[in-house]
């Protein structure tokens, strides 16, 4: 297996579940501070944040995945990505290691998965002792507008 067939995934934890996010989708990982809530925004928009002079729209992955909301004192990390001219940050509980996985080894998302999840989970990797769901982070960003509309 050639090394360039492998895809790099960064593992993140969201509400107790491990997810893999393609590194190529992510611009940076940062620690979110001082998020300004936006009144009337869709529920999964946690607010806006100043990242070195740029304004980032923060999306809460937990709310987006229908998981229990985060309490204020729980630590959070954010994955930053760019969508067109807009800058987005996806709030996750923790960021783990970077794994190189063969996309061919992934299995399709199970059919009985929550339909909401199935639109966001591209596949599942079996790792030692746990399952890693591959999260389509662009879909997670993109769907919000559909949700809000």
């Amino acid at each position, binding site marked *: 297996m050639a090394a360039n067939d492998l895809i790099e995934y960064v593992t993140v934890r969201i509400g107790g579940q491990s997810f893999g996010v393609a590194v190529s989708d992510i611009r940076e990982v940062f620690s979110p501070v001082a998020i*300004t809530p936006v*009144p*009337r*925004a869709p529920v999964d928009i946690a607010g806006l944040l100043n990242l070195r*002079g740029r304004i980032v729209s923060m999306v809460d992955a937990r709310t987006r995945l229908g998981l229990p909301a985060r309490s204020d004192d729980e630590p959070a990390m954010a994955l930053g990505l760019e*969508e067109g001219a807009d800058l987005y940050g996806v709030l996750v509980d923790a960021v783990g290691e970077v794994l190189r996985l063969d996309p061919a080894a992934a299995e399709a998302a199970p059919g009985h998965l929550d339909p909401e999840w199935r639109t966001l989970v591209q596949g599942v990797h079996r790792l030692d002792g746990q399952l890693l769901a591959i999260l389509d982070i662009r879909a997670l960003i993109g769907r919000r507008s559909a949700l809000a509309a």
Partner: protein
Amino acid sequence: MDELIGEFLAETAESLDVIDSELVKFEANPSDRATLDNIFRLLHTIKGTCGFLALTRLEAVAHAGETLLGRFRDGSLVADSTAVTLVLQSLDRIKMILAGIETDGAEPQGDDSDLIAQLEALAEGRAVAPPIEIAPEPEPEPEPVPVNAAEPAPEDEGDGGFDADLGRPLRPGEVSLADLEAAFMSTPGPQEEDEAVELDAEPEAAAGDAHDDAPVPVKAAASSADTAQPAAANGARSSAAIRVNVDVLEGLMTTVSELVLARNQMQQLVHNTEDSVLKGPLQRLTSVTAELQDGVMKTRMQPVGDAWRKLPRIVRDACQDLGKKIRLIQDGEDTELDRQVLELIKDPLTHMIRNSCDHGIERPEVRAAAGKNETGTIRLSAYHEGGAIILKLTDDGAGLDAGRIREKALEKGLATPEELAGMSEAQIQRFIFAPGFSTAAAVTSLSGRGVGMDVVRTNIEQIGGAIDLSSAPGAGTTFTIKIPLTLAIISALIVDAGGARFAAPQLSVRELVRVGPDAPVKIETINGAHLIRLRDRLLPVASLANSLNPNAPAAETPEGFVVVLEAPGRRIGLIVDDVIDTVEIVVKPLSAQLRQTGVFSGATILGDGSVIMILDPNGLAQECAVEGETEALDNQAASAASALAASRQRLLLVRAGGTEPKAVPVSLITRLEDIDASTIEIVDGRHVVQYRDRLLPLSHAAGPGAFRTEGRQAVRVFAEDGRSAGVAVDAILDVVEESLDLELGSDRPGVIGSAIVQGKATEMLDIAWFMERAWDGAPQRSAARRTSRPAVLLVEADAFSRRMLAPLLAAAGYDVTVASGLHEARDAAQMGAHYDVLVGDPGALDRLTGEGLFADIPRLGIGEGHSGILEGFVAIMRPGDRGGLIAALDQAARAAA
């Protein structure tokens, strides 16, 4: 070479725009030598550059056009509309070829011989063959240039050949050029100077440096528009102007924005420390940053005239297409504004000018019949006003037809008849801004394609601007557009509401009012609908925190500040906890889904690094209107939403004797006053108070004994016939909006009837009765009149009209019986009721008479467009004409008595 062509395209596009408008000017005044010279020079430059870049097709067209212009110049041809149209067509052809070059990098394939033949034929027409066939040809041709290969008129080409000394197809041009040069030689002074500049320009272009000299002819063209400005001055400017890529400027602007942010941050830090060492350098940083910001802003500024340049051509073409005579006057084209804003208003402006030509200005014969000048005038003006640019578009056309707009609004379901009945002309006219609205009876080639003023409004509001209109039938229409100078950095008021900070654009902030228990201005009512009294007007106010988040706990007694924001046609007051600061903020756009909130126009980063939201006054105003918290229905856009609130009426709830609330329609109240009880005097057994240097008669809704003797006495003031009376109450409770089902009839004096308000049966106070009582003994109304009040039967099917009219008639001293339909009126007739006058819907009254009921009683119709059944009526009054209605009624009643 690519870059060179790019420069050529940009420069030529500018030149062509100038030529377009200059030609129109020239057509109007063919003796204007300076304008012609200008056009000629620009076209000549284009031709020269084409030759250098080996753009043969372009060169041929430009050359033929120039030849024709040369004929105008040497006076051998008079520029008439046919000739100018032909030149304009050749410009369109040039534009088309340029567009081809822009997309493909090379001249598109095509044949221009037809156009060239026409141009040449016309150029030589006088000399040889009368080009009668050609002349009418260009006229029917519409503005966009289809590749017209239809009638190349080979015969003319032949003529041209015969006439030419040197050869057939290409020769006619050369001959003209020779003529032209001869003409150059023979022309006197100033022209030679022009020619000199032109010659200067050419070698430069040939040196591949076309971009350096390009702005010069353009600027020169713009400035020497009216007077032949010395060409030498133009030449001198060539070294002072350079062409800079827009992206470079944009990048610079972004950098400066970041610098402003960093400076703000620094200021915040220094402000919080005692370290005075930093203060000096910071001071300098601040002033340098401000200067830099100013400088960069200036590079982004462009005269608004740049966006107008296409307009004369549009008006001219519209005149030809529509057979109208229209003069376009431009005023203040030097007013500068941000390029980005300029780009964004170009299309809306073009659309509006087309609208004015198409719908605004009438046909010459119509104008003549109306006693107006056959030539209509469209005046476009621009000026600065307090950090904003005001654009005004005025035409002296027919004005907006409120009747047709009303019909259309009904037809499109934008409003209900009840809502429309309660709207002023101005409110109805604003419907043209409502989505999907278009009054064009016929779709013309110019406008009326379904996208209309709503698109214009949306475009303008998107850049933080506002549009409003005023129109008088027969006299014309004025559109006023207010747009910010720049989008990038704006001045904003930072406010605190519910623990969060927000920025309100200073441009929309009308004033700040301190409110609260200790402040001079108090918020009058609670329960979600607050009001403040602002210079004797009631201004609806809403808590910003609660508007943004309905779940937020509402403060029992709001205090702090009211920020009065202005949006077109309406004003809203937002209650905030505190006003923090005024700062220059850098506007950052919101990501797609946050834009959908509708109440924020962007976000910004403050000096302390925190992100705050920028409020959108337009969005907030619409919103509050839907909630019934702005001046009722004074809002064109929310009408679709408020259609739900059909026939709702705003009521003031008061306590007056007993604990049950009593209600009065807000529309009948002129003011709410809070009078010191000790100033209430009793004169001749009546309560009066000195109010604005006059005696205001008072009566108390709970009877004369209920007046307070100390403290404050709440009083509602009503005005009728220019006289006022006050009705005192124990307390003002609330303002509510209810769809009323008023049950008339009560045996208690002072009560009209009752209705369900907020789930409770509430008595409706009879304002007329109280006013009568307050005026009791006043000389204006004789006691005799009151003892025998004339009886009026009001027949009106429309509940809203009934509610408006019944108290009005009662207030005028009539004993009103209300019939909501014919059957009720018939019942009244059968019971042998007697009335002095019948008032109401002319159709219904006509039917009653037709049935032989109340046949000999004077009838007074209220309605519009009923002139056909005037017979048998005392008069037909418009519903809005209160004074006229009462006067007519008084007359009818006297006649009946």
